[in-house]
């Protein structure tokens, strides 16, 4: 876990830089991860050698780009163990994917009096689409409670999910509390009541093995940029029969079969949901990111991050006046760790850490209802990835202590 033995760190040249006269320690991976040099090179190579629009030309470059574009789709399919590659739809990101589900499946299936069930820990992107849908359709939006560690509470889920529930949508891994939610059990509950299970996988797919067939979720949304890929490219997974039954949300090129003056037939999956020229280089790069992650192994990544949490969480817990959110037990805590120094606004804390070279996020983390639920306004948040090390963890701990002393004593 130290710098010397971490063989992946060298692939991320951005980490090797000085900010504010200190070595950079990048701990904002839950916001976006860094990109390995291989993927940066691959993106450049695509534009240098193969760039052409997909699915619309008979020329050689078009064939090459189309092949790579579809090959990436198959890689992503295997990565989450989807049954069919046409269940993988390219989108702009998690937010886009969740909005598509709400606007297509939701618009089609939600009626007045129906229930949509989410939880208190959702990111705004897994909250507002359902809230607005509920408002528009006169449906009821319900929130599942969290247990004392911050997990979505299964007992409360049993009460909130009823025969009126049509959609249950929950984050697999929280971007604030560092919990892994019991998606499999939630999906079972949802299905018992005839509802579909939507999973926000933005934080789980980069972090641990995710198998959509094992989870038996109906939809899964995630973002490429949180798993080594470029921004602007995400995935919507949906079960084939569901996707087939759903109307497209955007109209234009690519998503059609035959266009007549007064009607149009839709293209097959997955293209029905991919109107317009997609983010071709981004999709191909995400395929390469999947290759990179597979070359390490998601089990190993999870294990490595668990070890880092085992190392750093007790050290953070030992700092006086540092409040840490989520489970106290390192075994239950993911590598997303939110905290506050008593009496200090998280922005002041984050500025202090930044002066020490440590990049963390501070704010409400796009989860204002969760902040309200916790009775706080904001937190600081450190999030680790597999290229982070013990040294990074030590720098975080030392910098928090130094910042605390600065503000408590006015000296350093």
């Amino acid at each position, binding site marked *: 876990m130290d710098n010397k033995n971490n063989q992946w760190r060298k692939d991320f040249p951005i980490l090797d830089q000085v900010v*504010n006269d200190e070595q950079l320690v990048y701990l904002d991976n839950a916001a976006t991860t860094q990109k390995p040099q291989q993927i940066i090179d691959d993106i450049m190579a695509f534009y240098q050698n193969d760039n052409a629009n997909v699915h619309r030309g008979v020329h050689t470059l078009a064939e090459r780009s189309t092949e790579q574009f579809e090959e990436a789709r198959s890689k992503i399919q295997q990565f989450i163990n989807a049954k069919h590659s046409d269940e993988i739809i390219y989108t702009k990101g998690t937010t886009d994917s969740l909005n598509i589900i709400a606007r297509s499946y939701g618009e089609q299936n939600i009626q007045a009096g129906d229930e949509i069930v989410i939880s208190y820990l959702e990111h705004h992107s897994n909250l507002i689409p359902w809230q607005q849908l509920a408002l528009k359709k006169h449906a009821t939006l319900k929130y599942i409670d969290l247990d004392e560690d911050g997990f979505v509470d299964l007992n409360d889920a049993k009460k909130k999910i009823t025969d009126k529930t049509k959609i249950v949508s929950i984050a697999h891994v929280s971007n604030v509390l560092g919990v892994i939610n019991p998606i499999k059990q939630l999906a079972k509950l949802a299905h018992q009541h005839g509802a579909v299970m939507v999973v926000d996988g933005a934080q789980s797919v980069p972090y641990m093995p995710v198998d959509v067939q094992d989870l038996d979720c109906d939809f899964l949304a995630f973002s490429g940029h949180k798993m080594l890929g470029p921004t602007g490219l995400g995935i919507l997974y949906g079960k084939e029969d569901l996707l087939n039954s759903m109307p497209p949300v955007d109209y234009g090129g690519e998503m059609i079969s035959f266009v007549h003056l007064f009607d149009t037939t839709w293209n097959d999956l997955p293209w029905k949901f991919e109107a317009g020229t997609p983010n071709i280089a981004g999709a191909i790069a995400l395929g390469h990111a999947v290759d990179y992650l597979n070359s390490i192994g998601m089990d190993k990544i999870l294990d490595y991050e668990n070890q880092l949490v085992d190392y750093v969480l007790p050290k953070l817990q030992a700092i006086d006046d540092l409040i840490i959110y989520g489970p106290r037990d390192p075994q239950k805590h993911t590598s997303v760790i939110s905290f506050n120094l008593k009496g200090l606004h998280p922005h002041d804390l984050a500025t202090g850490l930044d002066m*020490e070279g440590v990049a963390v996020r501070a704010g409400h983390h796009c989860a204002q209802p969760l*902040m309200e639920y916790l009775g706080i*306004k904001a937190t600081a948040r450190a999030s680790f990835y597999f290229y982070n090390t013990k040294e990074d963890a030590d720098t975080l701990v030392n910098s928090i202590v130094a910042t605390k002393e600065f503000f408590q004593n006015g000296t350093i």
Partner: protein
Amino acid sequence: MALSKLDNLYRQVILDHSAHPHHHGQLDDSTNQIELKNPTCGDVLQLDVKVEDNKITDIAFSGYGCTISQASASMMTDAVLNKDVSVAEDMVEDFSNMILGEKTDTGILQDAAILKGVSQFPARIKCATLAWKALHKALNNKQ
């Protein structure tokens, strides 16, 4: 240690204002009022102003925010109390110019001039300007 740079941002005066803010609270007889939010961090600032004969005769702020935004609000209230509205508006502009690193006369800003150091911390400029933006809006928001 790079933390020493923090001294440029968090001068003792700033820490004092934040820990013991001046004119903190609400006015029963305000003529102008505004609530401003900083959506990226969830900070909230409520500003109550009493204007009589085009002069700020009383002012108070409440809400929640970081050291910089709280100190800035405290300093702002000190600086504009008993000033004519037109002078206060000029000060809003002076403060904004100062924070953006532009040359400006900061004498009239009193303690608030010390927030000049914030211009080296672009991510925190919004924190420092919130109170002054609120003042500008409040002066244009008669009840």
